[in-house]
């Protein structure tokens, strides 16, 4: 235990911030030691930066069919087309770049929706218990047992075919997992003695949830987020691959779908189907590995003091 004596009483806010920054620094230090997590982080940052700067380095019109009539079709990778061209003469490399924007956007938005619904349902069910819990959990079970693909197909065909529909479909079908995870954690936190103490001090429900329950399940929410993103990206890919995506947007799933439909495999046009596949695997794997690492860094039960 250190023996230094602070010279004056610091303000509560400054104490809170210095400690919070300290614990973030701690988490970062232990994350740094995980090589796979660091590689994943680099991969994700690279994809993220590319997705953001794409509009500045290329023109969306360059991959519209009307503008590519002069390009060679099924061209091998070359100096002018880094990853070759497709059946319409469009650059595969540019499609991947623009596709990254769509895939990451859908992945992140769908995750946000999933986490928000899942957290609210899980925390409310776990904290209030009783009838609230019973009803919310039956609803959750109901969503859990709905076969995902048929529901997605029905929703995607009934609703307008836009990216937001895909976000909605993914969000509505994947929140039950987050809700169950959160509920079980809240059930355990709710029984800690410090929650009893807060009640004895006179804290109301909002205060207990806000100051005691949520902070203690935040690491789980964060880890759950990074593990949900890859699922959402894969789901978007699946839906687009099945032709249920937004027809006006290019995503990695759309590229794969078209490559399959136009017989890229038969023509041995590996530059057409391999790169989107590799991109998907890289991003999904990176999110998963980073999520695992974050989970062990942030979960106090897995971290040694």
């Amino acid at each position, binding site marked *: 235990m250190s023996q230094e004596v602070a010279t004056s009483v610091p303000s509560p806010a400054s104490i809170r911030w210095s*400690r919070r920054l300290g614990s973030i620094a701690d988490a970062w230090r232990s994350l740094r030691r995980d090589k796979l997590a660091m590689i994943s982080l680099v991969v994700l940052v690279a994809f993220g930066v590319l997705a953001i700067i794409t509009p500045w380095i290329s023109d969306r019109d360059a991959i519209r069919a009307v503008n590519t009539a002069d390009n060679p079709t099924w061209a091998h990778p070359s100096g002018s087309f880094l990853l070759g061209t497709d059946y319409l003469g469009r650059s595969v490399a540019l499609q991947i770049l623009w596709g990254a924007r769509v895939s990451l956007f859908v992945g992140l938005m769908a995750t946000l929706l999933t986490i928000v619904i899942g957290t609210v349902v899980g925390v409310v069910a776990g904290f209030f218990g009783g009838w609230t819990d019973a009803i919310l959990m039956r609803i959750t079970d109901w969503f859990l047992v709905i076969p995902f693909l048929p529901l997605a197909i029905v929703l995607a065909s009934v609703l307008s075919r836009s990216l937001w529909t895909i976000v909605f479909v993914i969000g509505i079908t994947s929140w039950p997992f987050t809700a169950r995870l959160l509920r079980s954690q809240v059930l355990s936190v709710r029984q*800690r*003695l*410090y929650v009893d*103490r*807060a*009640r004895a001090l*006179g804290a109301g429900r909002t205060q207990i949830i806000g100051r005691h329950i949520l902070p203690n399940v935040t690491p789980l929410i964060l880890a759950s987020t990074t593990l949900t993103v890859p699922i959402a990206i894969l789901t978007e890919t699946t839906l687009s691959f099945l032709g249920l995506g937004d027809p006006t947007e290019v995503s990695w799933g759309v590229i794969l779908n078209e490559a399959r439909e136009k017989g890229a495999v038969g023509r041995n046009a590996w530059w057409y189907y391999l790169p989107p596949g590799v991109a998907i695997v890289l991003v999904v794997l990176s999110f998963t590995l980073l999520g695992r690492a974050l989970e062990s860094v942030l979960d106090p039960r897995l971290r040694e003091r």
Partner: protein
Amino acid sequence: MSDAVLALTNVRVQFGGGKVHAVDTVSLDVGAGEVLALVGESGCGKTTLIRSVIGLEPLSHGSIEVEGVKVGRGARGLRALRRKVQMIFQDPSGALNPRHSIYEAVAEGLRIHKVKGHEPTLVADALSAAGLRPPERFLQRYPHELSGGQRQRVLIAAAMALRPRLLLADEPVASLDASIRGEILALMRSYVDRDGVSIVAVTHDLGLAWNIADRVAVMYLGRIVEVGPADDVLRTPLHPYTKALLSVVPEIEGMEQQILTGETPDPSRIPSGCRFHPRCPVVASGEAERLGFVDRCRGVDLELEPEVGSHRVACHAVQIST
């Protein structure tokens, strides 16, 4: 008692849909500036009783009055109650949120009850009153950086910062190292002597009662079986259960050990008649039969009788012999 800080009347706490009688008809007063030790074995309902006083357990029956005002069980009533009644816990490590600094732990109650004053000063004063000096050294610390004794002092500081009239203490030193227990007990007693706060201390340790309590109440299977001034109850116990409890405390010399057989009793199966009779030495030795009141022990349930000397006791044998 008109100056009672806490008055319990026929309090019952039941669990499991009324099958488990954790607290079974308890009436008890705690006077201003008084330390009451509530002693008994685990499962006797002593912790449940104080948890129900502060609203951590539901009250099935009976009433609770604080400073003569009946306490409502709604959100507003409980909030008002918790301004006047505070609690500390057996396990100070578990009772502090590991993500909150010591400052936040102490300030939490002040914010909830909107206590007037400069918050950092109030927190620092509460910490130094609890013996954590200089307080600046502790404000930024987190619970896992403190020792067990220091954590218990933080809990005491946080509770006493609200200037309650009554402090409920659930086994306040049971989880602490033996050599520091005395300091924590002395600290608790100092709040009584200086501020006139009252304390109800739940404990299995009769030595603690001897150290700080003015009065002692002995609980068995959800009911108080003997209550009175600590000096009298601990030195001249009347109830056979109190006698047995005292006889197994190794520190008392010249008292013949009276080890009760059987396990700690089960509050979901309370015996008929006097609830202690299956383990009672007076019944087991045949004395009750010889004196002809064994049927009452087996058949007639009883509560605390009016005072015998300074004690009140729930025992047929005591009642008949006086």
